[in-house]
C-alpha cells in the first residue's frame, strides 16, 4: 500500500508503549496492531485526532505517502 503508517516511529520518539496509547485513545491493542502493521483499510478522523493528541504530533508525522 502507498500509505505508510509511521506510528512505531512516533511511539519510540515519545517513549510510549502501544498498550498505553491504545488505552489513551480508547481502541483495542489488536486494532492498534492492525493500524501499525499497515493492514488497516481506513482510519477514522476521530482516531487520528486522538492519536495526534496523545502523541502531540501532526497527522503527517504518522502517515506518509510513498509511490509503489
Amino acid at each position, binding site marked *: 500500500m502507498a500509505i505508510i503508517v509511521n506510528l512505531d516511529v512516533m511511539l519510540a520518539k515519545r517513549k510510549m508503549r502501544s498498550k498505553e496509547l491504545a488505552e489513551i485513545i480508547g*481502541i483495542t491493542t489488536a*486494532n492498534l496492531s*492492525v*493500524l501499525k502493521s499497515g*493492514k*488497516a*483499510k*481506513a*482510519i*477514522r478522523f476521530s482516531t487520528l485526532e486522538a492519536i495526534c493528541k496523545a502523541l502531540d504530533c501532526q497527522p503527517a508525522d504518522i502517515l506518509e505517502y510513498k509511490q509503489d
Partner: protein
Amino acid sequence: MKKFIYICANSFFYMFSTFFLFVFLFSILSLFEKYEFFDAPFVDILENDIDGFNVKISIPFIEGIVKYQFSYTIIFMWLWLLFYAIFFYVLKDFFKIFIDNELFTAKHLNKLKIFFRLNFIPIILNIGSIVMGWIENKKVSFEEEYFFVFIHTCIAIIIYTYIDIFKKGQRLQEENDLTI
C-alpha cells in the same frame, strides 16, 4: 418470522429424515418378509398388483402408502429420500444464517455455496431422466420432472443472488472491521 421459517425448515428436516429411516428400515424388512423369515409390521407383500408393484409399506399416523418393486429401483427411492433429508438439513442451515448476529462471514458464504450446488443434483438427474425418456421414446408424461427442474432452478437462481450479495457484504464487513 425468521425464527418461524427456521423452525419450519427444521421440522421438514426431521420429517424427511424420519420418513427416510422408516422407509429404509421397513423396505429392508420387506425383503425378509418376502422370503418368509418373519412377518414385518406395516409391510404387505403384493401379488398381482395392477401397477406391477411387489411391496406396500403403510405409514402410520399420516395414512400414507409407499409402493415399490423388488428391483434396483428401490435404491433410487432411498437416494431420493436421503437427498431431500440432506436438502432440508442444508435449508435449515441456510435459514440459521439469518438468525445469527454476524451475517457476512466466510462460514455463512460456504453454507450458501453448498446449498447452491445441492440444487444442481435434482436438476441434472431430472433433465437426465427427461432426455432418456425422449431417447427411448417412452410415452409417459414428465410433469413431475419438469416441476422439480423448475423449482430447483428457481431456488438455485435465488441462492446465486444471495451468494453475490453475501460476497459484497463480506467485502464491506471486512472494510468496516479494518477501519480503525
